[in-house]
Each structure stands twice: as C-alpha cells, then as structure tokens.
C-alpha cells in the first residue's frame, strides 16, 4: 500500500515535466507544397478584424492556401513576438507596427522581401524607410495613417473662424474658440509614445530633427504648443490625455479642434451631430510643406526555417499590399493607400480622407533616421513636452533636461 502511494507521488512529480516535453512540438520542414500559413496581427477589435480578414481571405484564395490567423491586443504584440522568437514558433506572416520593424529585423528574426523577388517600388517613401534595415526591405504596408487637424464645422462657423493653415492662425483660432468649459484645441501630450507622435508634425514641419533634439527649431515648436496650454486655449489635462481621450473631448463638444488621426473617424460617426472636417496640420509659415509622422502596420515574413513556407508567405504579403487590397482596406478602415499612385483615385472616392491622403505622401517614418534608437528619442521628447507644459522647465531648456536621462 505504502509503496503504491510512493510510486503515485513520484509519478505526480514527474507529470508536469512530461507535459512540457510534449508541449514543445516540432517545426516540420514542409514539403514544396504549402497548404497552410499561420498569421499573427493585432487587429483584434471589430470592425478592423473582419476587414483585414476579408483581405487575407481574398489572398489566401488566390494563392490556394488556408490561413490560421491569430490576433492579439496591440500592447501585447511585441512581447508575444519576442517569446515566439525564443521558442522558434514565429508565424509565417507577421504584422508589426511600423516603428517596431527595424527593431525586430535587427534581431535577425525577419527575412528580406528581396529574397523572394517582391516588388517594393511605388510605395510612399516613408513607409519603405520604416521597413528598411541596411538597405533591405523587410515588409510592406497596404495602408498608412497620419495626423491632421479635425475641426467642428458648426463651432468654427459660429465663431466666424476659417480652418487655420499656419501656427499664427491656429493660435488665434484656438483662442477665439475657447469659451466657458470649451477649449479651442485638444491634443495629446501624454507620457507615452503617443505624446511624442503628436508633437512630430509641429517639430518636423518647423525643420526640427530627432537626431538633434536640443536644436532651436525643436524648442520653437515646443514653445508653440506650450503657448497654447499656457494661454488656456488648450486644457492643462493634455499631459494626461491619450489620443482616444482627445477624441472623446472633441466628440463631447468640449474642444472645437483636435490633432488626431483618421482611425478615429469610425468612433466619430457615433456622434453624428458633431459635424467635422479635417485639414493638414498647420505649418509655422505659409508655404512650408507639412510633414507629419507616418503610422500604419507592416506585414513581414519571419525566419521560420521552412524556405517553401517563407516564399509562400512573401507572396501573401505582396498580395495584401496589392492595389486592389490597398483600396479596399483604405475605404473600409479610413486609412490611406501606401501606393502613391492610388492617392488621387482614393481621395476622390473618400473625400473626408483628402487631407490625410495628401499628408501621407510627404509623411515621414519615425524610425527612418534613428532606427533602434527611436524609443530613446521618443522618451526624451515626451518627457521634455511634459516638463515644459507643467512649467517645470522652459521650452528652451526642456529638451536638454529630458535628454540628461
């Protein structure tokens, strides 16, 4: 009896080990005939999830494969990718947010699309920059997004204000539109990358550069946004507002204008009595070209060890980024096709996206210059913005203090 108990205990102790051994699973090097591809992306919410699913299904049909798709919340994607790369279970097709592509490509986990003869010409240069490391392109984005200035048509008409085109006009308009518990302008200056991203249009348009954050043009851009908050045209709460909070303020009529992206359009449709239009982010002096940051997701082909599957995966990436899918996805998701030749046709079909389409053509990628060092620069940027907006430092000294770490 006692012996039996002992044996049972020993078995119980060993069971977890045995289970983990089974769980690993081997990566089979598939034969030439690829029947199935695995896909990982972060479109886990409706309606985006089904829009992307439709595009994937179209391509799977053309290529004669079935897809096993997994979606994960955006904030978990990188952790998942890192876990999967250490356990050698990366999917055949992986979607990444564009500023992460260089970081992941630098680990050696992605394979360059040139190896499979994928044509990468004709895309918005910013998007190719974001996906390029050491001269090799690692992924394609079917669509892109960027920032613009949304304004409440009725409020501007009531105040007799024209949509602003320059900083001076924006400042005057914001001041004039601020009444009671309504602010003229809302934007996000939160202590995350969102805060840095929203500052970029002002910084870049003014000639500032992320490689020299202590430069005068960067400080000038910060002085401008700082002035909007100091004068009361924008709420002091901007230091704690995410872009979704900014949209909520705008949708609730508590802000007459906002800096935000077209991905907010579906949510804005839920408050149909807020009539809005969008223009490009104002520039410092008339005649300057507005340069906004480029957002959007890039589809890549991880190194999975199976050459045949990787080649098929590259075909899938090429198909997702085809003209047909670009236009379909752009129309459904309120994003902009990355093939610049499609811009005019798209802007005609979806007029509320005209300003954003124009902006994408000149938009710049966040990681284009700094690559892996972008997170550090973005941290310096949002810290400096917060130091300045909370009066801990003047706009001139904020970047020096923030970059001291």
């Amino acid at each position, binding site marked *: 009896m*006692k012996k039996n108990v002992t044996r049972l205990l020993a078995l119980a102790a060993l069971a977890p080990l045995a289970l983990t051994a089974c769980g690993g699973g081997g990566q089979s090097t598939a034969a030439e005939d690829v029947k199935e591809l695995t896909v990982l992306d972060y479109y886990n919410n409706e309606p985006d999830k089904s829009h992307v699913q439709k595009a994937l299904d179209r391509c799977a049909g053309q290529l004669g494969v079935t897809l096993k798709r997994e979606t994960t919340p955006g904030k978990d994607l990188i952790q998942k990718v*890192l876990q999967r790369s250490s356990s050698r279970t990366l999917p055949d097709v992986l979607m990444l947010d564009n500023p992460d592509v260089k970081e992941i490509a*630098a680990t050696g986990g992605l394979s360059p699309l040139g190896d499979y003869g994928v044509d990468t010409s004709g895309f918005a240069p910013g998007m190719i920059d974001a996906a390029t490391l050491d001269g090799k392109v690692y992924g394609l984005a079917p669509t892109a997004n960027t920032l613009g200035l949304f304004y409440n048509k009725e409020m501007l008409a009531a105040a007799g204000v024209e949509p602003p085109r320059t900083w001076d006009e924006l400042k005057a308009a914001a001041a004039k539109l601020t009444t009671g*518990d309504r602010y003229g302008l809302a934007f996000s200056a939160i*202590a995350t990358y969102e805060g840095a991203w929203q500052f970029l249009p002002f910084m870049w348009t003014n000639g500032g550069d992320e490689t020299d954050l202590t430069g005068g043009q960067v400080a000038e851009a910060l002085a401008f946004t700082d002035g909007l908050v100091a004068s009361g045209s924008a*709420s002091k709460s901007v230091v*704690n507002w995410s872009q979704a909070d900014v949209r909520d303020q705008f949708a609730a009529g508590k802000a007459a204008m906002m800096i935000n992206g077209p991905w907010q359009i579906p949510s804005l449709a839920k408050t149909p009595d807020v009539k809005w239009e969008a223009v490009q982010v104002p520039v410092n002096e008339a005649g300057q070209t507005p340069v906004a940051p480029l957002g959007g997701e890039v589809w890549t082909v991880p190194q999975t060890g199976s050459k045949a599957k990787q080649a098929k995966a590259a075909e899938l990436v090429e198909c997702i980024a085809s003209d047909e899918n670009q236009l379909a996805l752009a129309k459904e998701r309120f994003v902009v096709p990355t093939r610049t030749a499609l811009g005019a046709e798209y802007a005609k079909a979806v007029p509320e996206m005209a300003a954003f389409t124009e902006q994408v053509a000149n938009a710049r990628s966040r990681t284009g210059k700094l690559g892996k060092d972008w997170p550090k620069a973005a941290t310096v940027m949002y810290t400096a913005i*917060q130091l300045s907006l*909370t009066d801990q430092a003047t706009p001139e000294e904020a970047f020096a203090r923030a970059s001291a770490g």
Partner: protein
Amino acid sequence: MPTLETPVAPGGVSPARAAAPPARGARRRRASRERLVQALFLAPAGLYLVLFFGYPVVKNVLMSLQEYTTRTFFTGEAPWVGLANYATAIGSNLFGPAMLNTALFTVGSIAGQFAIGLALASFFRKRFPLSGFLRSMLLLPWLLPLIVSSATWRSILDQDSGVLNGFLRGVGLISEPIPWLTSPSVALIAVVLVNIWVGIPFNVTILYGGLQEIPEELYEAGAMDGATGWKAFWHITWPNLRPVVSVVLVLGVVYTLKVLDIILGLTNGGPANATQTLAVRSYQESFVNFQFGVGAAFSNILILISLVFAVVYLRLNRRAVDE
C-alpha cells in the same frame, strides 16, 4: 492566531515510536524508508518553489548582468556586462526621484490604508443592522480589476470634467479645480489616494479578523475598572492586536512597493516623471525601451528592498510563535 500553531509534520517520527526499537536492521530500513516518504512529501512543494520562484529569481539576476535586448530572444546571445546595468540604473537621473517617490508612495499608502482600515474594522466590531452586508461591500475595490479601477479613477480625477473637482466646487471647498493628475506637485498625492482606496479592504479584513480574536471578557473586565472608549482601545485592543498589526504592515509594505498597474493606468509615470517609482522604471526599461538588462537591475533593487521587509516579517512571526 490559528495560523501560528506549530505544524505537525505528516508522517513525522513520533517520539513514542522511536522509543520502542525493533531489530536494528529493520529499524534502519524503516527509518530510511520514512525519510524517503518525507522527502517525497516535500518534493512537490520543493519542485514548485524551484520552478516558479527559484528559476525566475536566478534568471532575473543573470539577466541584470547581461546585455539582454530584443536581439537576445532570437539569437540567444546575451554578452556578459558585469555590473554595468546596475551602474546605468543607479546613475540615471531618474533613480533618485524614483527612490524617493517609491518611499513616499509606500509610506503614504500604508499610513492611509492602515488608519482607515483600523477605524473601519473597529467600527464593524459593533454589530448593527446590515453590518455584514456593508462589510462585504467594502471588499469591492479588491474585486475590481486594477486596470478598471485606475481607468475609472482617471476620469473621476480629471481636472476639467472630473466628478471629484465638480463635487468639491459644488460644496464650495475649492474655487479653482485641483490639477489632480496634471500637476507634478499633486499627481503623487492623487496616486497615493487611489492606492489607499485599493488597499483598505485588505487592511479591514485582516484587522477585523484580529479584533474578533480578542475575548469579549477583557472588555467587560476593563469596563468594570473604568476602561471604556479610547482607554479600552489603547489598553486592551491595541496590545492584543499588535501581532496582527505587524503582519498587516509588513505585508502591506511588500505589496505596495511593487505597485505598477495603478500608476501606469493613472499617470504612466508622468506628468514630467512626477510619479516614477522603481517598479515603473523597471517596467519601462524592459517593455518600453527593450533594455531588459537595465529593467532587471531595477527590479532586483526592488526585490532586495522587499526582501529586507520580508526578513523583518519572518522575525516578527517567529517571535510571535515563541511567545
């Protein structure tokens, strides 16, 4: 306290058995078999500790001595860098403020949670209609996911349209809205207040349990001698509650040091780094900047501080057993 009873080892050698020895060889065989059984009883717990506590701690220490980046996950290469990560962590400008904030956050949270928790526990000692129901309602903050509570508090504390400022203005306590989460000088206080709210259920529950253990006769006898109200609390309740108090405080410190979700949800370490703590630094270095080595260094410093309090806890506990 029931938990402080000396444990009786199952299958342990009882003195009576050992005193009656059979033949020598049989005894040795039996002793070794019993030792084997003892070891097997311990094995699951030991295995669990090694897998889920030992491995992560060792891995974390190793990671803090390596240049561990995103690349490491794919290539497995993590060059040895000695104490460089600790130098980076301690040398950064944010280390001092983060240490100070961690201390202020912990002390403030514990003081508030404990004072309010003890007051509520004493209050609920008196039975009154619906006291059981109210006491269980108090557990609510504990039942809510922290990410939900912090999102809710974020909207409550909003400077312009938050309910709290609206209420304070309504009753005429303030004329200008308080910048709860948007001013570097107020944000830490706001975060502490929310954490106090989160921690009250834990304090009430444990302290209430401790109060139940105090025999009613002591109060009756005290009342005879004129010890009522505050006097009764000071001379009867407090001395009898002391072992429970030390447990609550030490566990509270260990739980509070590592608080991360509430701060991330409310301020994300801002505004202007005003709510950076060691836990936030560790998270941001690892999962925002992908500097896993530096993040591990921060978390090891945090573990070390927790360890000091854990040792204090164990010593207090042992003394309680000895008494």
